[in-house]
C-alpha cells in the first residue's frame, strides 16, 4: 500500500488517445517517485466542464459531479477526491460546495441521483493534484527525488484561470499566485519573475468557437513569456497547455510572429528532474518538442 492514497478523477481529456493523456502519463511517473497511489473512481463520468451549460441546466450539471462524488463515496470512502484537470477539479468542487450549502439543491440532486441508484452524502474533500503535492508532500518532499536539477532553464509559470480562481491553491492570491514559481525553483530551474500573463485567460473552450479572439489572448501569453526570457512555459491545466502549445503556427501566420515555445505540464518537468526517461515524462506527447528537457532526460 502506498503512503498517500486518493480517489482519483482522471477526466475525459486524460483518456488514452485524448488531448491530455500526456499529463496522466507524467503524473503517474511522479506518483511512483512520491509514493502516491491514485485510485480511479469506478465508472466516472464527464463533469461537463464549464462549457456544458448550453445544453445542461444547473441541476443536470450538478448531478453529473454529484454522481462522481457518490461513486467515490462508495468505492473509496476514506480518500479525498483528487483531479489533475483544472476543469474537473473546479466543477467537482463547486458542485460539492454548493450541494453542501444549499439544501434545496441537495434534495433535488439526490432525487435525480436516485434514478441512477445513487446518493450524494457530501462528506468528501475535493482537491487538486497540486494541492496534494504542496500540502501533503511539501516543497521539501518534492525536492528529495530530484536527481537532475533543471539548471539553466528559464520557465514561465503559467497558472491560468481555473487552477487559480475562484478557489486558489494553498491560500495564495488570485492576482499573483506563486506556487508554480516555487515548484520551478524546487526543481532547480529559474522562474520568470513578474510573468505578466501568469493568470490571464487562454480562451478556454472558446478556442473552438471564437478562435480569433482566443488566439489573440494566447498570443499575449506567449509574447509575455518570451519577454521574460523564458525557454518554455509550464502549466497545471490541460486546456491552457493545449491552447498555448498547438496554435502557435496559426498565430505566427496571422500576426507574423515566430513563436515556437514548448508548453509543458509541471508533471513532465518533475518527471525529468526526478531522472526519469523521456517516455515516462511524456515528452513524446509534445507537439512542440521540449528539446532542453529531452537533453536532460537523455543524460545518464
Amino acid at each position: 500500500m502506498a503512503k498517500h492514497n486518493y480517489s482519483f478523477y482522471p477526466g475525459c481529456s486524460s483518456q488514452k488517445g485524448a488531448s491530455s493523456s500526456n499529463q496522466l502519463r507524467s503524473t503517474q511517473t511522479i506518483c511512483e517517485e512520491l509514493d502516491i497511489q491514485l485510485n480511479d473512481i469506478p465508472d466516472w463520468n464527464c463533469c461537463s466542464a464549464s462549457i456544458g451549460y448550453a445544453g445542461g441546466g444547473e441541476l443536470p450539471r450538478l448531478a453529473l459531479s454529484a454522481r462522481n462524488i457518490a461513486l467515490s463515496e462508495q468505492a473509496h470512502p476514506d480518500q479525498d477526491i483528487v483531479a489533475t484537470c483544472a476543469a474537473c477539479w473546479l466543477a467537482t468542487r463547486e458542485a460539492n460546495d454548493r450541494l453542501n450549502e444549499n439544501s434545496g439543491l441537495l434534495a433535488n440532486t439526490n432525487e435525480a441521483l436516485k434514478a441512477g441508484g445513487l446518493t450524494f452524502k457530501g462528506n468528501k474533500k475535493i482537491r487538486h493534484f497540486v494541492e496534494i503535492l504542496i500540502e501533503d508532500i511539501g516543497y521539501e518532499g518534492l525536492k528529495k527525488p530530484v536527481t537532475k536539477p533543471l539548471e539553466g532553464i528559464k520557465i514561465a509559470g503559467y497558472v491560468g484561470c481555473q487552477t487559480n480562481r475562484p478557489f486558489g491553491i494553498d491560500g495564495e492570491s488570485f492576482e499573483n499566485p506563486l506556487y508554480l514559481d516555487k515548484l520551478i525553483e524546487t526543481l532547480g530551474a529559474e522562474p520568470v519573475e513578474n510573468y505578466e500573463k501568469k493568470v490571464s485567460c487562454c480562451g478556454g473552450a472558446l478556442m473552438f468557437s471564437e478562435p480569433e479572439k482566443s488566439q489573440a489572448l494566447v498570443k499575449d501569453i506567449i509574447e509575455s513569456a518570451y519577454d521574460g526570457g523564458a525557454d518554455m512555459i509550464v502549466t497545471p491545466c490541460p486546456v491552457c497547455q493545449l491552447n498555448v502549445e498547438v496554435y502557435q503556427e496559426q498565430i505566427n501566420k496571422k500576426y507574423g510572429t515566430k513563436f515556437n515555445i514548448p508548453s509543458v505540464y509541471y508533471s513532465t518537468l518533475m518527471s525529468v528532474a526526478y531522472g526519469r526517461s523521456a517516455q515516462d515524462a511524456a515528452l513524446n506527447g509534445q507537439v512542440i518538442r521540449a528539446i532542453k528537457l529531452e537533453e536532460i532526460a537523455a543524460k545518464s
Partner: protein
Amino acid sequence: MSEQYRNNFLREVEANVEEGEWVKRCMQCGVCSGSCPLGPHWEHPPQELFMMIRAGKRDEVLKSSSMWMCTSCYNCIARCPRELPITHIMHGLAHYAERLGLAPKNQQTNKFAQRFWNNLSKTGRVNELKLTLSFYFMNGFMAGVKMSLNMQKVGLGMLLSKRLNPFEILGGHGCKDSKGLQAILKKAREIEDAKIAKFQG
C-alpha cells in the same frame, strides 16, 4: 410581459436562472466588465446585463450574444466586491435563453456548448474527436472540410503526439452505466422543467 424598471423580469431571473437571486446585489462598479478577457467583445458586459435585468429588458438580455462570450475564467468572480457568482449567472442566463429558444441563432459558442453537452450526455464522457468534427461540420460538409483543412496541422500534431486517436470515431470511451447516467440527467431536467413551468404559472 415585462415593463421597464419594474421587477417582473428580475423576479423571473431570480426564479429560473442559476444564481439569479444575486443579480439585485450588483452595485454597478464595473469591475467585472473591466476584468473580462473578452470584455471588448461583449455586446453588453455583465454590469450592463445586471442593470438591463433590473430595467426589465427581457428580450434584449436573453437574445444577446453577450453571455456566450464568457470563457469561464472566473476573473469577475474573484474580483467582484459584492461577491456575485458572475460566471455562473452568465452561464445560467445563456442556458435559460437557449432553453426558451431565444438565444441568437448561429452563435458559435452556443453551438459548440450544445454539441459538447450532447456528446457527453450520450455516453457519459466526452469524445474529443467526435466533438471537434461535429462542430467543424455543423455548417455542412464543405464548410467542415474547409475548417478541417485550416486545422489540419493542429490535428496532425495532436495525432503524432498520440493525443488524438482516429479510432475514437468508431466508438471509444464511455461510462459503463450510461443508462443510469442518462436516467439521472433526465430526472434532473424534469425537476428543472417543473420549476420553470410553475413560475410561468
